[in-house]
């Protein structure tokens, strides 16, 4: 049934990204650590 509505939903203009996307970005930011070692920068994802 949900397919019937999918096209109309997609036709709507998107003005703000979803809260899931924002949540993902904030979680990503919290998990990312950049380690500086002798001038080299390493990225580390903390799960």
């Amino acid at each position, binding site marked *: 049934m949900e397919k019937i509505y999918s096209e109309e939903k997609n036709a709507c203009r998107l003005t703000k990204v979803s809260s899931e996307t*924002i949540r993902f*970005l904030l979680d990503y930011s919290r998990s990312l650590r950049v380690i500086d070692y002798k001038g080299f920068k390493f990225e580390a994802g903390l799960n």
Partner: protein
Amino acid sequence: MKLEIDDSVLVRDYISGDEKALEILINRHNQRITSFIYSKVLDRDITEDIFQDTFIKVIKTLKRGSYSEEGKFLPWVMRIAHNLIIDHFRKNKRMPKFEGSDDFNIFAVIGDDKLNAERQIIKDQIDSDLGVLIEELPEDQKEVLVMRIYRDMSFKEISENTGVSINTALGRMRYALINLRKIINKHNIVLTS
């Protein structure tokens, strides 16, 4: 009166470890950036993806300490988004995406290059008609045409096999085609499907 903290202050706070500052920045500019991306790509899912990739770049740059405060935060983020939009279109040019809809026809995407039954019959008919016409050509021209078209030989190979120069073989091929067209015109034959 609502007091708004300046972007540059939030960026500095974020760099020094205040994760909340990032949330404020994202929420503050969510609408501007989303509308900008959507106005270019006109697709909700792609907009979400590009927005996400944009902020992943922002987060990485800020955390690595590579952000210079020369410009303003929003124009900088918009520039990243703009570059990612260009990347998206470049990528899609190489690998076109199929726009699905309710009347989605899978054969429009994965259609094979074989002819359908009707076109195959027409092609066979044309081939056999052409075979009859070729028989009408003078022997030397017919020989060159058959070697070139049906046996896929190069003019060098044809010249070696027939014992004539390449130029002569080329000339015979040319006359073979001219004469074929003459025969077709003379008898009002229509070979196209």
